[in-house]
């Protein structure tokens, strides 16, 4: 991969950066403002994928495959994390019959 394929040069790298930033911010906003656990979870996935996008973009423009390898790992780990996270949400739902995280305030000091 010595050279960047012609097709990518059409889109400049800062477009990727801006897109990723927008996605990441949407994710953060989702996490901070939504109360439904599943939506929070989706927002976290969004943040994760925005980072992945950035990885791939930089990897391409630097002609370095390491970033793409990273993305594969992150996706594999994220899949496992989704399984665990959804299982937790299912357990929470069974217990309190809701996925509203504002009810889960037992850790209050």
């Amino acid at each position, binding site marked *: 991969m010595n050279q960047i394929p012609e097709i990518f040069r059409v889109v400049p790298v800062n477009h990727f950066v801006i897109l990723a930033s927008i996605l990441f911010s949407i994710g953060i906003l989702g996490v901070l403002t939504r109360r439904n656990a599943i939506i929070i979870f989706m927002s976290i996935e969004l943040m994760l994928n925005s980072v992945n996008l950035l990885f791939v973009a930089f990897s391409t423009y630097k002609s370095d495959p390491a970033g793409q390898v990273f993305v594969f790992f992150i996706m594999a780990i994220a899949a496992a994390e989704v399984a665990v996270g959804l299982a937790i949400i299912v357990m929470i739902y069974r217990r309190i019959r809701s996925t509203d995280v*504002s009810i*889960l*305030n037992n850790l209050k000091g």
Partner: protein
Amino acid sequence: MEKLIAIIPALPFLGFVLNGLGVGKLSKGLAGGIGALASLAAFVVSILVLFQFKSGDGQAVVVNLWTWMSSSSWKIDFSFHVDQLTLIMLMVVTGVGFLIHVFSIGYMHEDEGFGKFFSFLNLFLFSMLVLVLGGNLLMTFIGWEGVGLCSFLLIGFWNKNEAFNEAAKKAFVMNRIGDLGFLAGIFLILFRFGTCQYTELVQALGAIETVNDPYLVWTGICFFIGAMGKSAQLPLFTWLPDAMAGPTPVSALIHAATMVTSGIYLVIRMNALYATIPDVQEFILWIGMATALIGALIGTSQNDIKKVLAYSTVSQLGFMFVALGVGAYTAALFHVITHAFFKALLFLGAGSVIHGLHEEQDIRKMGGLKKALPITYITFLVANLAIAGIPPFSGFFSKDEILAHTFASNKVAYIILAIIAGITAFYMFRLLFLVFFNEYRGKLSAEKIHEAPASMSIPLIILAVLSAVGGFIGLPEVFHFPHLLGDFLAPVLQPAKSFANTHSLSHTISHSEEWMVMGASVVISLIGIGIAYSMYISKKLVPSEEAPVGFFHKLTSNKFYVDEIYDAIIVKPINLISGIFAILIDILMINLFVEAVGILTKGLSMGLKTSQSGRVTGYAFLMFCSILAFAVFYLFKVF
């Protein structure tokens, strides 16, 4: 041989572990069997070591197990040291120890703490063996502390009785005072000589030329304070009579035969040191003398059978220290041996009487037990003759040797000591007459009084034989027989002897004087016995129940008010000061400070706890902000 030596203390330790882990699980027969067998095995191994040692060249054998601790300038090994002195102590400790274990099987048979008793007894034997086998002062100190602990545990063995617990605490505290002296002595030795290994110390001390070097004087006094505590010398003797709260076999083993003689062992072990400081020897002489006198005087007016024997022990220990004070180390050790025999016998005999009379200890409620307890009577009589110093019983030879050496070095001391010997004969025969002669004064019916079982009477008989013939290991010079003990012990005492010879400190007496001393001590003993006979047999006097009359009688029956004096000058002021400090320091300063810290922490946490809202999104926001802050910090180094 090295392996055998290491096995000796390991055997009682094994017994302790087995009995200690098996408390309540092992049957009484098994627990007693393990205890007695462990001590018997230690005795047998000690004999084997003795024979192997005798076939060797007579040099001390040092068994180095491992290095215990080391620093740049000194190193202390975990080592055992076997020489003639150690071997004699081994024989006494394991031999008498075994007999007392066997006696205890019978004596403690009814007791619910049987297994506990034997595990403690074995632990004591282990500690005592470490004490006498220790290859350096610190090893001896381990054993020294160990026997103190076991003494504490066994005095307070019947721990449901509050008075017995007090006695145990008293013994422990008084011993601690002595232990501090011992420890200070070890530090002084380490500081000066850089070693506390006995073999190296003997060489280092042998090189000393000055007499009464001030540094060594203080070292010697420190060690003697240790010996004072353990061997119940004035002013630290009051714990020993109180220690009679323990079961009688314990009194026989720990507070008569073995542990209380470890002070004498220590001084003999350090003879190379004491030979160079005659001033301290003089001090030891007079302390021993005062103790012997006070013990004997108090012994004349006690009415508890064990208390009489306890004060007698104090007095006899005083005799041994007098011997040490005049440099007669052999005589002191000789008396340790014979005293171990006859005093253990006396205590076991007393135990047999107490057992036969169902826990009666008051001699006013005894009398006429000669017929009911024949074996006990005969063995007790033998022990009495031995302690009173009637030839040819063992006590005569050892006491006579002490008297002869005292005569040689200090005539005044000799006269006082001879009178004390007479008092000894008096109070011992007073005890004998009151317990075994005349009519029975107690309330038990004749059938209820029973002679001891075989497990108790056989040790009595063996000890009686030893008390009778034990003196022949050290016959006086005038008989022209070899002094077996003296010859055997000579290599250990070589440093002291050579120092005394070079500085002309040794004393000798002629044969005619020796005959005179011997004759005088027999006559004085007979006078003491005669007075006791006329008072308690002819006139049939019995100590009255009423309060004592007369100044002297009041003084002795109240034990010279020593406990009261200690209470007034030490215990009460300490209590007062503690009370003041409790209010001033503890309540006013420490409590307030500690509470202020608590209040501060509480207030802070009350404020901070509002941040723990429990809202998940709040936490997430905080996390996001923190990460952002860190990122900004690392990327732009803004803060």
